[in-house]
């Protein structure tokens, strides 16, 4: 009962937290930074995915599966832009094509109306790895003086924390349906954290563009 009450509160916080980065992105609308534009698109997709249950609960699994696919593609494009390296560019392209094929196969075999957890944890594994690789790149290149003022750092941290926090729940949800009651609060906490970090990344970019020097990725 108590868990249910906390869970529903956290759920609403999580859903409405997407409005924070969305608002700052709208202020940032004129930004010419391609990373910010892609991140904005990801936030819009996330907002659409979060508000679907208010329209119809029946289409939630379908929208969830489609959201996973779009999220994967957008994150792939963002990381491709962040690494700016031909070899990683090719790897991410292969991963994106592979993920689309996996989705098509799963939609055809399992069905699109059923939530497919394997799509979630496979993308979680991939983006945790890419996020760690990007941290390595930041340490190796030493191009940024203060990481805390670097929008890409906050984006990357958001991705690492979101997927690391949700990884076990994605795996366990498939293995043990009883764990579904923990799904919502855990996912809500990490989703809110991710949204706040995205909002901070947008804010840093907005501030840097206003003072006229570049803090964001080249």
């Amino acid at each position, binding site marked *: 009962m108590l868990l249910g009450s906390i869970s529903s509160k956290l759920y609403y916080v999580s859903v409405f937290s997407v409005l924070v980065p969305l608002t700052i992105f709208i202020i940032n609308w004129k930004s010419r930074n391609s990373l910010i534009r892609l991140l904005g698109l990801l936030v819009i997709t996330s907002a659409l995915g979060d508000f679907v249950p208010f329209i119809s609960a029946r289409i939630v699994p379908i929208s969830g599966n489609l959201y996973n696919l779009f999220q994967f593609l957008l994150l792939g494009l963002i990381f491709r832009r962040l690494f700016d390296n031909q070899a990683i560019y090719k790897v991410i392209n292969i991963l994106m094509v592979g993920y689309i094929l996996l989705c098509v196969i799963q939609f055809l075999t399992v069905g699109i109306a059923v939530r497919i957890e394997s799509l979630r944890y496979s993308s979680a594994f991939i983006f945790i790895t890419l996020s760690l690789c990007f941290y390595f790149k930041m*340490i190796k290149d*030493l191009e940024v003086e203060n*990481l805390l003022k670097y929008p890409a750092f906050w984006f990357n941290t958001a991705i690492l924390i979101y997927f690391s*926090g949700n*990884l076990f729940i994605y795996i366990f949800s498939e293995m*043990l349906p009883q*764990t579904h009651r*923990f799904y919502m609060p855990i996912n809500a906490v990490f989703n809110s954290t991710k949204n706040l970090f995205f909002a901070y990344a947008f804010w840093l970019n907005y501030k840097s563009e206003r003072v006229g020097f570049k803090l964001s990725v080249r």
Partner: protein
Amino acid sequence: MNDAQQSDFILTLFIGTAGMLLLAGGIVFFVLFYQKRMLKSKIEKQEMEANYQKKLLKATIDSQEKERERIASELHDGVGAMLSTVKLYLNLLSPEASANQEDAESLTDTKGLLDDTIETVRGISKELLPKALEMSGLTKAVEELCDKIDNPKGLRVRFAEEGAEKRLEKEKELLVYRIIQELINNAIKHSQAQKIEVKIGWQNGTLNLAVMDDGVGFDMDEVNQRSGKDRGIGLYTIENRASLLNADVDFSNNQEGGARIELSMQVG
């Protein structure tokens, strides 16, 4: 699946999630800490390299100055003295004593040429080692330099000063003097200027120097795109000397046309 197994699963779920979260947090803190440390060591290394380059540059300029000093003294005390002795001997020969008119004219011409040569040697020697710099200071030495180049029938070189001069270390004064010398030479060689203005100002512990001309000015795109020696040896030498003085140099064009070079440095 029984209750005990379910509880184990749920426990594993929470421990796993907490573990992943701790790991992620640990990685983030490690990246922040390690990046800062690496950046610090990179900056230290760059500073060491810059200091080494500065020392190397200073040694090169010092050896250049010593060489100039040696040549100047050789010219003044060696060649100059010998030419004066030759003049003395020539003066002993009177044109009237010559056998014919042609010999007498040659002797007079030789004396005239010798006077010019002695004057040229003195000029070169002075240029190589400006005595006025040591004796009267930077302002006076620069004023003399401008007066020497100024030609009422051709290129006009005007000098202006403002504020009371503060004597600098000999090395620094020589560096500033060489910069001015190079700027004037550049203006003469490249700008097609009719007028050059040199201004020296001593205000609030700062030396402000400006050299302006009414020539063709800089191609700013080219100056900004290139760096180091690609900008030309003259500008490269000026930048190097300015870096030894910890001075800021600004190359720009006047609104009316022509180049404007400003240098400012703290003089204590």
